[in-house]
């Protein structure tokens, strides 16, 4: 990316004051990136940002509390940082935020689908519009618009909302509007039995690995999660799709109005279960009732973490 060197310089300057800076670097092949923990000057060279920088690194922040941490954020990731700040799960003075203008990231599941199977990637070259992959000697051309993560199509905040160092020129909101809930709205029109059947079928293959939970920057209970608690006993250990669904419902409820729709839960799922939709549903309700969007203003309090005697849009007195 154009301003990658600028970013490296910026990190180089800040590193002496920091314990670690988290960014991304290349992974096992050219088609994948991985989170990169920069502790020494020589780690900086490996840093790479671009359409493969899919991971939301804000997930690591609560676990590093007490340390001086630098973090590179996409626009959407910065919203998770804001939400964590709002909830006092991290301390602003300990965090140094590096922002850059994000032009979108890929959805590896879409790439997998487009190719049928991925195989031995020999090279991967990306431009603004496309990706050229050489796999087992064969060249594949994929349009970026076909392999982009869903969230990027309607991205409202491509530039980090909050940052201490911003490299490159801001893109601005462009013509993007509020979150796009079209797919969700279509789904909501189906009869209950069909919707329920859909989730039973999708969740049947859930292996209960809780990658969806652990990748979520705002799932902060971790080792005290309701999923694994024996007392109270919310979920059984039976191989029961209803228990699996129950966990997703718990996750969605706990994230209502806090979830920034970063999509990490769905990206992390090793068996590609579309769990993001459940969170979008909750967020859509929160948006309609409380006119609230998570992770935008560090001074705000999420609606379900606050209490008002009279809610503007909940008219219980008129019943």
């Amino acid at each position, binding site marked *: 990316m154009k301003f990658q060197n600028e970013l490296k310089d910026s990190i180089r300057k800040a590193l002496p004051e920091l314990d670690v800076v988290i960014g991304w670097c290349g992974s096992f092949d050219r088609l994948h990136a991985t989170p990169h923990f920069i502790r020494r000057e020589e780690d900086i060279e490996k840093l790479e940002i671009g359409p493969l920088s899919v991971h939301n690194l804000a997930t690591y922040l609560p676990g590093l509390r007490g340390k001086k941490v630098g973090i590179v954020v996409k626009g959407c990731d910065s919203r998770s940082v804001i939400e964590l700040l709002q909830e006092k799960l991290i301390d602003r003075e300990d965090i140094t935020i590096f922002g850059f203008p994000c032009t979108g990231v890929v959805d590896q599941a879409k790439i997998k689908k487009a190719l049928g199977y991925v195989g031995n990637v020999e090279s991967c070259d990306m431009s603004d519009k496309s990706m050229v992959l050489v796999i087992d000697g064969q060249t594949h051309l994929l349009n970026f618009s076909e392999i982009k993560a869903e969230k990027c199509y309607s991205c409202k905040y491509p530039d980090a909302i909050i940052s201490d160092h911003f490299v490159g020129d801001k893109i601005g909101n462009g013509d993007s509007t509020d979150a796009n809930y079209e797919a969700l709205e279509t789904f909501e029109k189906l009869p209950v039995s069909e919707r329920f059947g859909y989730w039973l079928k999708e969740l049947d293959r859930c292996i209960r690995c809780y990658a969806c939970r652990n*990748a979520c920057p705002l799932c902060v209970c971790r080792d005290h999660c309701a999923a694994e608690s024996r007392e109270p006993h919310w979920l059984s250990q039976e191989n029961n799709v209803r228990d699996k669904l129950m966990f997703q419902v718990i996750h969605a409820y706990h994230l209502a109005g806090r979830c920034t729709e970063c999509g990490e839960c769905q990206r992390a799922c090793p068996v590609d279960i579309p769990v993001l939709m459940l969170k979008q549903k909750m967020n859509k309700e929160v948006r309609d009732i409380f006119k609230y969007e998570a992770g935008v203003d560090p001074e705000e309090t999420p609606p379900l973490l606050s209490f008002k005697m009279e809610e503007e849009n909940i008219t219980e007195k008129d019943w």
Partner: protein
Amino acid sequence: MALVKYLKSSDLKSWLAELAQKNSVFAPRYEGDSVIFAPFDPEQEIFIKNAATAPPKKTVFPQSEKLVDFKYSKDPEDLSRILIDAKENLPEGTAIVFGGRPCDVRGFTMFDRVYMSEEATDIYYKTRRDNTSFITLACDSTENTCFCNWVNSSPSDPTGSDVLAIPVGDGLLLKAVSDRGESLLTSKLLSDGESRIGEGEKVCKEAAESLSQVQDLSNAPQKLLEVFDSIEFWEDVSAKCLSCGACTYLCPTCYCFNITDETKGLQASRIRSWDNCMSALFTMEASGHNPRPTKAHRLKNRVGHKFSYYPDLHDGVISCCGCGRCIKSCPAGVDIREIVLKAIEFEPTVVEG
């Protein structure tokens, strides 16, 4: 000479349907965007292009199984006594798993040493293992994450299988590996395969050559012990780990389990379900103490177990079959190969004085 047959691709479903008359048959198919093993359904396409997202581990070692069902009741003779009526749930019937990969199926041989050893036999595991046959698909193409060749195996390794199926032309060359395998190759849909053996060998050779260069892991057990006490090393390699269960639950050789009693009123079941060493609750003791309190300790266990402690107990056999799922499916891109190689290169810093 072992029995060799040939099956046209167009006859695959009919053949599996024949086998399904007397056995439960599992085959890989798409569910959503993932490929998993599911009971054979002639209405659905079987996916055999490359390894499934999840291995067939659950066919012998289910994600969750009821070991014993029990009921509480009062003793009518003495109402102060509670009676327990327990019923063991031993698995029944025979199964055939079609389409596992050599790494997947070889994985069960790592289970065998633990669950069917001379000292102890797990009757649930053994019953399924004895009653399950494997028709394994040799890989004709490989992925960047595959490294079966580093762990003394190959894309056509028949270890643990009953039949090895090699994609040849527009069909499968079926080689019996065991006596049980021979008995699976009696269908009229199969023709003689002798004439295609050469072609099959070529496919296997090409797949083997497409893998990355073999790395010498012979001193990994020793080196991993040397690096055991270096918490910095483990903190460094585990920094990006999210402590989920994706790597272990998708691993064909991870065999840890948990036992819980699920009680509903006077009825209860004793359940065995998968557990994993990456979870924060793994080895959490009732006192609240956890000997593996951080993800660094836990990742050390996963890598150390497979590449050091298990080989030390089991004739040097590495209990990783090189399938690469833990790398490919890790949401944070943790690469077990990289960690093992780093451990091999590890030089302890000598503290002066």
